[in-house]
């Protein structure tokens, strides 16, 4: 009996979510009186995972798994779960995590709960709290199968150091061939992506036009943040669709979300509710976003943002 955690990596390096799911797996293992086994695919140095509680790391090195493929990756996770006699499998709820986990669930005949925000409240029955109704509520969900799959929501459990003296061993699974083949990957390089970002700087129609986004990008640059926008802005073609945050756009679960010139339509709020701290800058004191925000400035973005950039530069330099 063990808790198997899939620690995802990019170019050999672990994603922040990998450290979060290992931290989560360690907590579940403590609750069950079990141990944590982390599964890695083409990761360069696995010792970092011991710091977060992985007692055993199984490593898969295979060129056919260099790029993510849901069916092939799912077959590796499923086979590792069987080999380790795992009763709980923990993955993240990233775009790729949500792609592979349902396939693993069918393969293992396991109950699956995605977007889980806390450690199990009970292990008998096995009960987890997950997001529902587009972040407007939570559901306490009981997983009743022998094997349980948990998809942990980003930034919900956090990364917790819990050093153990772990060991690693190689694992050579049979990799399922996929009928879906990757032909082309297009990535924006040199920018923080919304999914990875701890801070997101987002702007709306209050910016008046795409030519004014320079200060938003500069603010994001100072904070090491990703840039995002409201739906009308992407619909108008001022910013790419990939930056649209909201119910039908990208969900954001950052530690800090700064909304500039965004009124706060309910669809936008549904996409950012999971962010921890929200700051709103808007000229209209009646903008609905102020009701959802932690901190606010009633003011003109064209005056406030340059001052904020200047002050943050000074703060970072001090």
């Amino acid at each position, binding site marked *: 009996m063990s808790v198997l955690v899939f620690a995802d990596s990019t170019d050999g390096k672990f994603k922040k979510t990998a450290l979060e799911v290992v931290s989560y797996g360690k907590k579940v293992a403590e609750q069950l009186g079990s141990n944590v086994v982390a599964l890695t695919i083409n990761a360069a140095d696995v010792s970092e995972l011991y710091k977060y509680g992985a007692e055993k790391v199984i490593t898969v090195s295979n060129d056919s798994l260099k790029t993510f493929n*849901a069916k092939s990756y799912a077959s590796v996770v499923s086979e590792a779960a069987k080999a380790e006699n795992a009763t709980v499998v923990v993955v993240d709820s*990233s*775009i*790729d995590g*949500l*792609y592979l*986990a*349902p*396939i693993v*669930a*069918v*393969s293992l005949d396991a*109950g*699956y709960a*995605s*977007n889980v925000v806390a450690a199990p409240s009970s292990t008998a029955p096995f*009960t987890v*709290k997950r*997001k*529902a*109704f587009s972040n407007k509520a*939570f*559901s*306490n*969900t009981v997983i*009743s*199968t022998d094997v349980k799959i948990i998809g942990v929501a980003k930034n919900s459990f956090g990364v917790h150091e819990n050093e153990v003296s772990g060991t690693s061993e190689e694992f050579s699974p049979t990799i399922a061939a996929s*009928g*879906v083949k*990757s032909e*082309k*990957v*297009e*990535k*924006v390089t040199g920018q923080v*992506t919304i*999914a990875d970002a*701890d801070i997101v700087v987002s702007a709306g129609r209050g910016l008046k036009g795409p030519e004014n986004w320079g200060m938003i990008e500069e603010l994001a640059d100072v*904070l090491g943040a990703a840039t995002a926008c409201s739906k009308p802005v992407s619909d108008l073609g001022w910013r790419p*669709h*990939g930056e*649209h945050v909201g*119910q*039908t756009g990208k969900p954001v679960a950052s530690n*800090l979300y700064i909304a500039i010139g965004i009124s706060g339509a*309910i*669809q936008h709020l*549904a996409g950012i509710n999971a962010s921890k*701290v929200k*700051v709103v800058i808007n000229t209209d004191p009646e903008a609905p976003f102020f*009701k959802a925000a*932690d*901190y*606010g400035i*009633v003011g003109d973005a064209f*005056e*406030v943002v340059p*001052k*904020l950039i200047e002050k*943050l530069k000074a703060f970072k330099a001090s």
Partner: protein
Amino acid sequence: MKILVCISHVPDTTSKINFTDNDTKFDTNGVQFVINPYDEFSLTRAMWFKEKQGATVTVVNVGNATAEPTLRKALAIGADDAIRVNTEPTDGFLVAKELAAVVKNGGYDLVLAGRESIDYNGGMVPGMLASLTDFNFVNGCVGLEVDGENVSATREIDGGSETLSSSLPIVIAGQKGIVEESDLRIPNMRGIMMARKKPLQVVEATSTDANTTIQSFEKPAPKGAVKLVDADNIDELINLLHNEAKVI
């Protein structure tokens, strides 16, 4: 091409979310139900295939009779016929299993769904359905072309997109981008009238298997009032973000 579009019957985005029966049931009182927005993108793409390339479009819902107006709306948009699997959709696995039975009986080439429903947000049904039917699968699809047996699908990835090739049959979980929001259709009067005469078949569920159950719901703790900072006092905002919120 035979297309099946999976339709979830969900509360409208602007609905107030409340619970009854000791927080164990969603309170539907005063709530308007609609086609799940992600499914609507996929349905619109299916209509495009029907009109431009020739296809039949069947819509399916796993749910009770209250979902029928939502299926009728999909018929009014242009789907040819509808199937309702008569059971309470309590769990994603149960829904996927019932949809798999429909897919196996219907001989569909392309199954379109939304990437998740906006009520339970599980995001698991399309992937489970693909696995149960042994169809290929693309999740989070933002672009889709079908040329004969060949499928080209683009999916969203962190920081960009990935274009994938496959053959039919395939399950596609769509989202905004598979069509644009401006392309979504509102049923016209003629469509509504025609929808009344289109077949809506009710089939009984094959099983009651569920892997998960919802024990209770809860709402987030009430949020405190916003702390307003004077526009001339940016230092105070930085101080609050650094010392109080500890996010910079």
